[in-house]
Structure formats: structure tokens, C-alpha cells
């Protein structure tokens, strides 16, 4: 574990140089412990694949003292300390109009479109962390058979709520933004809704499943989301 200063108000606690569920679990467990213990001077934490960015108040705690306190907690940072993960079901419409790259990805993978959809929707995904844009989940759990290098030419605009895959990752665009993932479909749910009391749908550590829906159901749910009557399935 390394402590890397990030200016006068933050320190990056780096566990390893790899993307894996094991390393990310330790990151999230350390975050949980820091919050649970209410570590002196800690203001805010941002978990990512393999590191935790800790924002602190230097008037309340010095850099060395903070690093020592974190180092003391680190050995306990394992999956056993984490509370049970939430299970979230995301309806996803895999059609060729919303799934901008569905056919191209299937062709590249030498799979029938139906089989690509089946493989993608059969897996359970772990939200490693939320980042980049508000509410965007970085997720693990893609079946190896559908791993693909990212698009050679990223799109300048990907519609919000698009579900994409690239390399070993699955992600859902939370706002319209540039992006290099292959877009397989779209969820009618808003990953980020600035007008909702709780604007961000997913949390680090959530377990996500995609439920394939047809276009008619997509439109139905989208209308309910618009009317704010849709309740996502979260267990």
C-alpha cells in the first residue's frame, strides 16, 4: 500500500496496480472503515478501482498522522467488514436503434446478436465505483466471451443511459458525453437525475443485473420515469 500526496487537502491511498474485484473490495472496505470509525480530519472519500482518495482538513490532522491512522485500519479492510451489497435490477432495451453498436459488436465477437444479449444480461455486475460524470458506474463481471477492445474512434456524443462494453468493463453513461464503449442497449432509468432528491441511482459496491426488455416496455418505463412514478427494483 502506498500513500501518495494529492496536494494540501488530499492523499491517495493506493493498493495495487491492477483492476480486480479483490483489490477494489479492499478499497471499498477501507473506505467503509474510515467512515465507520469517523477518522479525525477526514472530510470525504472517493473509491476507485485500486485506490482511495481521502480528502482531509489539515487543521484537524497532519499528513503523517492521517497516513498512520489509515495504515492501522488497512489490515482489517476486507470483504467481511462491508455491509451486504444492494442488488439492483436495471431494465435494458437491447435493440439496434438504442444499441448503437449491438450488431457491430456481435459481428466482431462472431456471436449472434441474441447470444451477445443473453451473455450480457445473464451476468451479475459489481459496481467498482461511481465516477467521471455524476452517477456513472464502472462495473466488473463481464463474461470473458464478450470482452472487446474499446472503439478505435470514440463517439463525440453518447446518449445518457446507454449501456456500453469495452475491454473487461461494462458501463452506463449517466449524462450525454463522449465515449469509447460499444453501445449494446439503453436503460430507461436515469443514472443521474439532478431534480431527484437523491440524484444518483447506483452506489459503489452495488450488484447490478440487466433485465432485457422490448421497445414497448422501454417506452412504458421511460414514461413512468418521466412522471416520477417508477420505482427501481433494489433489494
Amino acid at each position, binding site marked *: 500500500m502506498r500513500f*501518495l*500526496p*494529492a*496536494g*494540501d*487537502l*488530499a492523499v*491517495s491511498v*493506493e493498493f495495487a*496496480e*491492477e*483492476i480486480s474485484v479483490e483489490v477494489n473490495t479492499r478499497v471499498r472496505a477501507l*473506505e467503509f472503515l474510515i467512515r465507520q470509525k469517523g477518522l479525525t480530519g477526514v*472530510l*470525504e*472519500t*472517493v*473509491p*476507485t*478501482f*485500486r*485506490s*482511495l*482518495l481521502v*480528502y482531509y482538513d*489539515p*487543521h484537524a490532522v*497532519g*499528513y503523517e498522522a492521517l497516513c498512520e491512522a489509515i495504515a492501522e485500519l488497512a489490515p482489517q479492510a476486507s470483504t467481511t467488514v462491508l455491509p451486504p451489497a444492494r442488488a439492483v435490477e436495471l431494465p435494458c432495451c437491447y435493440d439496434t436503434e438504442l444499441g448503437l453498436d449491438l450488431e457491430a459488436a456481435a459481428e466482431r465477437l462472431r456471436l449472434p446478436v441474441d447470444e451477445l444479449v443473453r451473455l450480457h444480461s445473464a451476468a451479475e455486475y459489481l459496481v467498482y*465505483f*461511481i*465516477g*467521471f*460524470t*455524476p*452517477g*456513472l458506474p*464502472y462495473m466488473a463481471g463481464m463474461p470473458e466471451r464478450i470482452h472487446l477492445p474499446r472503439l478505435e474512434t470514440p463517439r463525440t456524443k453518447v446518449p445518457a443511459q446507454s449501456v456500453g462494453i469495452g475491454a473487461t468493463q461494462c458501463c452506463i453513461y*449517466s*449524462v450525454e458525453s463522449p465515449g469509447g464503449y460499444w453501445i449494446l442497449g439503453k436503460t430507461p432509468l436515469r443514472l*443521474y437525475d*439532478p431534480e431527484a432528491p437523491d*440524484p*444518483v441511482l447506483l*452506489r*459503489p459496491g452495488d450488484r447490478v443485473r440487466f433485465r432485457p426488455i422490448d421497445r414497448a416496455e422501454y417506452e412504458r418505463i421511460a414514461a413512468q420515469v418521466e412522471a416520477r412514478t417508477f420505482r427501481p427494483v433494489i433489494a
Partner: protein
Amino acid sequence: MTVRILDAGPLTTVQDLGRAGHLRYGIPPSGPLDRESFLLANRLVGNDAAAAGLECTYMGPRFQVDRACAIAVTGAAAPVTVNGAAAPRWTTIMLGAGDTVRVGAPRVGVLSYIAFSGGLDLAMILGSRATYARGRLGGLEGRALRQGDALDVRDGPLPAVRSLATPPSVGGEAETIVRVVLGPQADRFTDEGIRTLLGATYEMTQQSDRMGARLRGPRIEHTRGHDIISDGIALGSIQVPGDGQPIVLLVDRQSTGGYTKIATVCSFDIGRLGQVKPGQRLRFAAVTVDEAHRLLRESETFLDGLLREERA
């Protein structure tokens, strides 16, 4: 009381001290880029530090108040007029019902701050009134102000008139010195790359905004590629993508990113950086974390000193 916006200026937003605790959901803190000028504006109208006011980029707004109130304008050297007559900055300005105020384009600096006695009265979104325009969150409908907007101000007693004996200098240096702490990924740059960062001058570009300041200058050399496994981006992180040109990430930054970060601008120099106009130059100077904490305390003592010197 209501403030009616007659002209908004190119980018005028409601800001307070920012939205803490939501970076783990990808939501940045927002808040004023030049925190010191913002705090002084609030202080000059007798507000709490956290009261909401306006941040203006380049040209400020023209607005009318419908009741007597006090305002203060701080930050960039922008001309202020009340009903067409010049008014001072860094001073409490007493307004009467129907008065029209204009904050013009700054000769020096970029950002002006306008505080209203009582503070702007808007809904708190996730604990803050700060505007995050990219995420359409906070402020007035999550956006920059427009002509015709009306902003409510909390009613309260009028403060005494005060001014700063020695206002801080904002912008205008031939070369602004910006202090940084090296890291978190300084080891991904060659010695020559680090020397370039700390030895060369960089120019502020037009492509800069509240998310990040894009700088132009000598290319900063990486050791092995410019990509890392995405990690957290702190206030002031200096990201260096493949073209070797530094980007300093600011209050509306993305929470995480996958480019190498050579160093981090110290919090107390973010405001100075924000006041550098496109085309003007700046230089980076490295300090240790301990030195940065000492300088942070010094900058706070300096700010307190300015406030103690305020004159009735």
C-alpha cells in the same frame, strides 16, 4: 428582496462554499474558484461565510434591486457603477430601492464576486446552493443566470459600511507563481518532464473553465505512457495527457480520470490561478506537503488580517 437580472454577462452563476461529500457519486463540489475574494465579499456585507452570492466570469451582470440592501463586489478589477456612477470595489455599497448596478469587464483578472446582505435565498440541493452547470444542479435551475431572472435575497438588518484598507492584489502579475505538491503520479514522468513543469512558463488558454484550466507550453515528458488505471482527481490535480500539455482540474472537475497527474496545485493558489486571463503566463513552484500546510495557515492568517484592517 428581489434582484432582477437585466443583463447576465457571459457566465454568472450562484455559488456558495460548495457541495461537500458527493464526489464518491461523481458530483463535484463546485463553489467559487477564487474562494478568498468570495469570502471577503460576504464579510463586507456582514454575511456568514457560507451565504450564497454570484460569481461572474469576465463581464459581470447588470441588475436592479427592489429594496434597500447592501452589496460588495470583490475579485477582478472590474468597473462597478450604481445608476451609472462609479462605485468602489472591496467596500460595502448601500443600495436604495430601484437602484441599478453594473459590473463591467475586468481590466485585470477574470472572476468578480458579488455578495448581497442576507445572502441569495435559493433551495439547498445536496446541502449547497452552488451551481454545477454541467450537471444542471443547484443555483438557479442548475444553470448560469439569464436576462429576466429574479433572485430572492433573505431579508435582514443592513450592515455597517466597511472597506478593506489593503485589498488583495488579484491577477495582473506578469507571471503568476502557483505552488504545487508533486504527485500522485510524479514517478510517471522523466526528470526532464519534472524540470519542464517547474522551470518553464505556461500560458492560460481560452479553453479553460470551472472544470479545468488548460495550459499551453513546453511538452512535459512521460516515462511510459500517459494512461493510468482511473483514480480520484483532487482539487488542483495537474493532469498531463499524451500531448504533454497540463490541465489543472478545478471546482467543477470530473471526480475520477485515467490520465497521469504530475502534481497538485495547492488549495490556497487555486484562486490566483483562476484569475489568470487567457494569454497570460504562470509558473509552477514545488513545495512539500508540510510547507503547503504552513503556507495554507499563512494565507488564512493573511485573510484574517485583511478583515481586521477593515475600516468603517
